[in-house]
């Protein structure tokens, strides 16, 4: 769009500071800053989304908090509340391309609505503060705000009303349902139900992978030199099972618990390694048996641990349930993993000493 030479932190968003000469305004006109934006996403917006998804420069995908006009809103136009995470803000403006409205961006420290609501930064205090700072009472005649439903854990609608006079209406979970919502003025049960479709699950893969990249490379190399290429392939397989297979197949894997789902996947991918070690003609019977037990102990315990840690990235798990999973399974996983590592070291030592 325009040559936005703002500072680097906000460079990628389409916001242009509107230089209103203050003296032109009558007394009642708000004097606070207001930004303009468009409903059109540019290439660099999409590139920024890509970087955010890849986990690159994670905390810098931010938008300046404050009030934005989209199109040409007037005193009756709707005000839609969003977070200052670029992906959140862009999904709102993208879905409202041809609608004149305001977007009130809360300062959530660059975090999306759901996570920020859980932390409380997308919260009652911040909303009331932004209503005041943006001087909304002077800009619009009505007293309604549309807040995304996933922001509700941080917002207390009646408290916002008592403190600001604005009535919170909860809009749809997905920004793409906003136009329909604005027509109908109510959300359908379908719109209100959080879903976790394949696309949303796949989008998490790069970030999950990036968390595990370094330990994976280190372990792959170590095992390559000390235990051979098959062992380093097992490391890569384990990590891919936990980070790629698991989110892809999530709804189809039996059992409800994330740990047991991951454990099942782990067993499935461990079996081929177990068989390969067992049937390896170049090793002694003792080494073959030890070698075939080790993957069955280590791989499932690691995939199960990775998938348990996936709980936080889904909108599906309660804290009570996750806690129960931790207490139930972590001791078993630790025991299995520990036993596997001890056997691995034993096998290494015995082979080195040429005992087996």
């Amino acid at each position, binding site marked *: 769009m325009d040559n936005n030479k703002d500072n680097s932190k906000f460079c990628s968003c389409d916001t242009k500071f509107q230089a209103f000469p203050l003296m032109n305004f009558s007394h009642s006109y708000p004097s606070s800053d207001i930004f303009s934006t468009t409903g059109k996403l540019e290439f660099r917006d999409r590139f920024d989304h890509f970087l955010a998804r890849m986990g690159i420069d994670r905390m810098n995908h931010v938008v300046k908090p404050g009030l934005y006009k989209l199109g040409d809103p007037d005193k009756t136009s709707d005000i839609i509340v969003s977070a200052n995470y670029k992906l959140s803000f862009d999904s709102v403006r993208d879905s409202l391309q041809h609608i004149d409205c305001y977007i009130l961006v809360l300062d959530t420290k660059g975090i999306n609505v759901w996570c920020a*609501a859980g932390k409380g930064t997308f919260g009652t205090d911040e909303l009331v503060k932004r209503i005041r700072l943006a001087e909304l009472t002077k800009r619009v005649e009505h007293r309604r705000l549309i807040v995304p439903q996933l922001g509700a854990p941080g917002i207390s609608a009646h408290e916002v009303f008592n403190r600001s006079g604005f009535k919170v209406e909860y809009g749809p979970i997905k920004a793409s349902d906003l136009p329909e919502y604005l027509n109908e003025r109510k959300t359908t049960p379908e719109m209100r139900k959080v879903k976790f479709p394949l696309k949303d699950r796949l989008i998490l893969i790069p970030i999950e992978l990036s968390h595990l990249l370094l330990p994976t490379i280190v372990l792959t190399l170590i095992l390559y030199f000390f235990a051979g290429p098959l062992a380093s392939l097992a490391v890569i397989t384990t990590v891919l099972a936990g980070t790629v297979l698991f989110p892809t197949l999530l709804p189809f894997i039996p059992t409800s*618990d994330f740990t047991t789902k991951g454990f099942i996947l782990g067993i499935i991918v461990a079996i081929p390694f177990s068989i390969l070690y067992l049937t390896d003609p170049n090793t002694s019977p003792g080494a073959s048996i030890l070698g075939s037990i080790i993957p069955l102990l280590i791989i499932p315990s690691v995939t199960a641990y990775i998938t348990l840690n996936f709980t936080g990235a889904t909108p599906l798990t309660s804290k009570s349930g996750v806690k129960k999973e931790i207490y*139930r399974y972590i001791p078993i996983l630790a025991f299995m993993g520990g036993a596997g590592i001890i056997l691995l070291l034993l096998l290494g030592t015995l082979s080195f000493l040429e005992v087996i």
Partner: protein
Amino acid sequence: MFNSYLENTLEYYPENCINCHRCIQVCPHNVFTEGNDHVKLTNPTSCIECGACAQNCPNEAIKVEAGVGCAWAMIRAALKGKEMDSGECGCDDDGKSCC
């Protein structure tokens, strides 16, 4: 077996409910549904303890120990010797797609 999500901390006191439907509007898992004099707690086991209903109930008809169901944050808290419930969400963003 293998379902740790059958119990949670959600408590509903229908006698306090003024049937305003706020909880129905905010719940992302359709835990509450419409009823005659008060809303019905239809799917209690689907609750993920996000706390939205309790935060927005104007008449204290709902109680829940709200928190984030994130194993990583809890394990990290436990390793640091803190309460598992300390509530700190460890990651700064997991790129979850919401608006």
